[in-house]
């Protein structure tokens, strides 16, 4: 008996000093259910529970984001519901809070303290952004208590070799996905337009080869910059009638305005995903650390941009669903979306977030809304050393 106690004490000591989380013991919960609110990472072939036999959408209800854009709106807490009040809209408008996992408030929208506190307590994040979609502030309740992960993140940052590998991985994901986007666009067209699109895609192929041999971070950034320039120079081939080149702060044409707004929305969700997993969004690998710059969020966005934002923007432009009448030009030359345009874009954005995308690492389809979270969790696994490599999210 004394022997067993001594052994147990020894094992516990080793566990405490080891700094590694033990695997769950006697945890009969299905991963899918306990993580249904977030994203289940159970890979095919792993032991599963009976719930996995249900159809993919049988159990999870995708929680949604509330975009509050109309100035003058105020959001209140009413029991377990969220009450929307606007002086011009009479009546009680209620939404069950239980179905929301995020609130995005443009400035001009006010939230009561009660609502903010309730959201913080539930772990429902709130993001405030400017009328142009620039990030202002965010609340997300207490930080996830995962010091080991945070340390691992910092240690990886301080290791030049690991840092370079990760930075190259993010860029590789981005280049690959942009290449897919270009080739796909080329398939649907003919003539010089097709040739030019294929040329730009070849450019990305070469960049990928160069990337494999890159030995420094600045080299990696250079390869990425060149490929990005080539891509944006070909913007008129992807969406005929559009200006070429990338302009930002401020964007000076419709396509750039939509891209900036879309990247802003993606950033909100990537930033939130990183915080939810317990990673520090400000300590990144590809984008150098600078105060106030969410470098890791920007890193993780790279591989998601082409398919989740660019493709939606190009579709909207090519179908004429968003045109110049949805934007206004300010005296300085800056182009921004009108209230109407912002609403149209967000409607399409919300719909696009429900679209399932194949996810090779997980071996199943994942809705666009959950991709940032699955990426953040896979990155966390890699940083903690549970997974040997971090593979970017790419489609073929």
């Amino acid at each position: 008996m004394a022997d067993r106690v001594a052994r147990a004490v020894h094992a516990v000591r080793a566990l405490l000093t080891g700094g590694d989380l033990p695997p769950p013991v006697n945890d009969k919960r299905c991963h899918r259910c306990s993580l249904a609110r977030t994203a289940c990472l159970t890979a095919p072939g792993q032991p599963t529970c009976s719930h996995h036999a249900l159809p993919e959408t049988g159990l999870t209800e995708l929680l949604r984001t509330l975009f509050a854009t109309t100035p003058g709106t105020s959001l209140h807490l009413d029991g377990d519901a969220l009450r929307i009040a606007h002086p011009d809209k009479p009546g009680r408008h209620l939404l069950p809070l239980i179905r929301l996992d995020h609130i995005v408030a443009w400035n001009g929208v006010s939230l009561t303290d009660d609502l903010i506190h309730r959201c913080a307590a539930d772990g429902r994040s709130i993001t405030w952004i400017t009328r142009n979609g620039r990030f202002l502030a965010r609340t997300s309740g207490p930080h996830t208590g995962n010091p080991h992960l945070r340390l691992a993140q910092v240690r990886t940052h301080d290791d030049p070799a690991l840092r370079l590998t990760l930075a190259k991985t993010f860029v590789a994901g981005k280049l690959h996905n942009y290449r897919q986007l270009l080739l796909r666009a080329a398939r649907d067209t003919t003539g010089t337009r097709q040739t030019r699109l294929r040329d730009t895609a070849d450019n990305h192929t070469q960049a990928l080869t160069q990337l494999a041999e890159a030995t420094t971070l600045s080299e990696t950034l250079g390869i990425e910059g060149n490929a990005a320039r080539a891509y944006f120079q070909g913007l008129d081939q992807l969406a005929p009638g559009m200006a070429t080149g990338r302009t930002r702060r401020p964007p000076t044409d419709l396509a750039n305005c939509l891209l900036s707004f879309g990247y802003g929305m993606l950033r909100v969700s990537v930033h939130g995903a990183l915080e939810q997993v317990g990673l520090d969004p400000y300590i990144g690998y590809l984008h150098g650390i600078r105060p106030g710059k969410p470098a890791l969020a920007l890193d993780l966005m790279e591989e998601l941009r082409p398919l989740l934002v660019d493709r939606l923007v190009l579709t909207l432009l090519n179908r004429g669903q968003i045109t110049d009448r949805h934007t206004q030009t300010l005296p300085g030359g800056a182009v921004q979306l009108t209230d109407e345009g912002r609403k149209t874009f967000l409607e399409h954005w919300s719909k696009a977030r429900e679209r399932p995308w194949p996810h090779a690492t997980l071996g199943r389809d994942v809705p666009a809304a959950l991709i940032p979270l699955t990426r953040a969790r896979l990155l966390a696994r890699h940083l903690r050393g549970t997974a040997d490599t971090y593979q970017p999210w790419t489609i073929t």
Partner: protein
Amino acid sequence: MELLVTYDVDTTTPEGERRLRQVAKTCEGIGHRVQKSVFEVVCTPPQRLHLEARLQGIIDPALDSVRIYHLDRGTFHNAKHLGAAVDAAHQEALII
């Protein structure tokens, strides 16, 4: 899961009116009100148990009745509305 929650609460007494308000408030916290005492709810099985337990605690079993129908997925989407009915935003984009 998709649920349809309907209730009848006896409101001849002040206590009854109080119960009615509490039942309505509880339902507002989980679903969309589509008629005066009819709610459409999209939730998970644990949330349903939670809802049932709370309603059980509010109502007077001798006077009030709550009915919860478990519907097939997609029923709300296919529902037809006549007259001044509201279309509950279960899946649509939430932009205000």
